[in-house]
């Protein structure tokens, strides 16, 4: 057998996997680096959360924030932390996690780093739903959220129907999604022209994606959706990993590809819709988080949990950075993630093109 001469011994890597085994025959396999990266991201997200709670017109030190969170500190500080700022941060963490894990599912199922809900027109679909409610039904916050969820889910089903051809094929899925995004954006613009100036301003802010002014009313529904769907998606992590190798290879290993895809995509669509309803279609978190997480863990597979932690860290970190740089509530977080994510998208397109995949 001929080994290529270019392979020096230092090109070998050893993945450190830890296996926990019980005498009863149970075993759990953990990839040390993936676990460390996931834990580090979680700590980062929580640190950004504490920093975000501490920033604003009435700044607090991290110590004061933690004291207030655990029930100590002055009553005034407790009120600011627990009633005013905590909901915003929780919405940020949950929305980021939902986008991150949904992006990982989408990219795995479409086998394409571009196959992410924000590229495929889910944001636009949710915007159409929300704008329809704002312009024609003059609905309040809850109705707008319901409109966004409906718009997102309908968009999802529409893309699947159009892209379905004896299964999901990565490129077809991405191209149909990009087409849908363009058409839905036209619909968004049309609805904006029909809106009066007050509605249009509100709608535009909503479409940018923002965490400011979130209260417990937005936290609970989102938390409930995440509490059900994130564990459900994680339970499908192992078969999803097999799906990466192609449908034939996965079903040869006993994966029921149709069911795995249907369940995980449906969960991802609902997660994206719920997150969008709570904070608007914050751009590019779903696109970037799974890829950045994968680069940190260096593990193949969808990296579901690290992606969720990365999404949460990215979103809350971006919101905190926006507040530090531009002042409290001056810059909706969607502007910042859009600018950062846009840069990443350009880089991704260039590298994909170099790799001959586009």
């Amino acid at each position, binding site marked *: *057998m001929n*080994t*290529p001469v270019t*392979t020096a011994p230092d*090109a*070998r*890597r*050893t*993945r450190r*996997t830890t*296996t926990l*085994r019980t005498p009863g*025959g*149970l*075993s*759990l*396999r953990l990839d040390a680096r993936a676990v460390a990266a996931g834990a580090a991201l979680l700590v980062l997200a929580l640190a950004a959360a504490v920093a975000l709670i501490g920033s604003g017109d009435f700044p607090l030190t991290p110590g004061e924030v933690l004291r207030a969170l655990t029930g100590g500190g002055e009553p005034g500080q407790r009120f600011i932390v627990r009633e005013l700022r905590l909901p915003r941060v929780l919405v940020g963490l949950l929305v980021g996690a939902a986008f991150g894990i949904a992006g990982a599912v989408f990219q795995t199922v479409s*086998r394409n780093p571009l196959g992410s809900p924000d590229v495929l027109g889910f944001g636009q679909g949710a915007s159409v739903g929300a704008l329809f409610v704002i312009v024609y039904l003059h609905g309040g916050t809850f109705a707008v959220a319901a409109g966004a969820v409906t718009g997102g889910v309908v968009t999802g089903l529409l893309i699947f129907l159009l892209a379905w051809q004896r299964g999901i094929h990565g490129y077809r899925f991405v191209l149909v999604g990009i087409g849908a995004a363009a058409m839905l954006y036209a619909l968004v613009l049309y609805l904006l022209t029909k809106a009066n100036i007050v509605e249009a301003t509100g709608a535009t802010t909503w479409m940018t994606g923002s965490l400011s002014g979130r209260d417990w009313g937005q936290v609970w529904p989102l938390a409930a959706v995440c509490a059900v769907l994130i564990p459900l998606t994680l*339970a499908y992590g*192992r078969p999803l*990993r*097999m799906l*990466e*190798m*192609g*449908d*034939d*290879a996965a*079903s*040869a*290993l*006993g*994966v*029921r590809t149709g069911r795995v895809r249907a369940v995980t995509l449906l969960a991802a669509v609902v997660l994206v819709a719920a997150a969008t309803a709570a904070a608007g279609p914050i751009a590019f978190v779903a696109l970037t988080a799974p890829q950045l997480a*994968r680069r940190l863990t*260096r*593990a*193949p*597979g969808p990296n579901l949990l690290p992606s969720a932690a990365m999404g949460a860290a990215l979103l809350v970190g971006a919101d905190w950075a926006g507040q530090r740089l531009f002042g409290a509530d001056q810059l909706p977080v969607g502007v910042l993630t859009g600018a950062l994510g846009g840069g990443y998208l350009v880089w991704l397109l260039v590298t994909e093109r170099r790799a001959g995949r586009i």
Partner: protein
Amino acid sequence: MSRLAAEHLTLAYDRRVIADDLSVRIPDHSFTVIVGPNGCGKSTLLRALSRMLKPTGGQILLDGAALSSYPAKKVARTLGLLPQSSVAPDGITVADLVARGRYPHQGVLRQWSREDERIVRESMADTGIGDLAERYVDELSGGQRQRVWIAMALAQQTPLLLLDEPTTYLDIQHQIEVLDLCAGLHEEQGRTLVAVLHDLNHAARYATHLIALKDGRVVAEGAPCDIVTAELVESVFGLRCQIIDDPQTGTPLIVPAARAARRPAVATAAS
């Protein structure tokens, strides 16, 4: 005896019928090779045998019961498949990819037993890729990569293994290497192998049981020495040829007739 058989299959993609009333039995412990011209339905039959394609009529029997009646993971512990195209995930090592073959034997609480570890090691040794264990699959040559996929299928530890054109896109030395490997699995480990092959001479040399398909029908089946004749090759492939004994193995060797002999009309006209 046949653990795997197809009975009165109708196979179709959408409305295009590939085969109608097709029945085959795979003899146990055989190295069965399916041959036939492009579009004859050989890959389609293999896909149906490995439950990648649902027959529109008839059924596949595994140990006497309909294949579709088994749970997916149970089938995957009995019947392995090396698909024509599989995608190696980015940044995966050889050992990790081969380990994925253990999936049907694992569960959420039984992710990596000592047995899994041993079988993965053995599968890599059997396919001669033990030295490559820690290498990334992306950096391997085509022949090495194909052996990694075969090792993954071996790690699945199935008594039956289906291979869809395992030698396509490989250089001649790697084609032979892969076929030798398959012959070894059949002879030394007693596994039943079913392969779709393009090269008739490879099929005649390696198969213990040959199935010749044309237009979705079985034209002939049996040991290559018994069934490979010039008439059969001409009727199945429309190719005039001479059959001689393979000087190395004594199996039939197909030598296509020379151009002049195949097109006498043209040859005479030119002279």
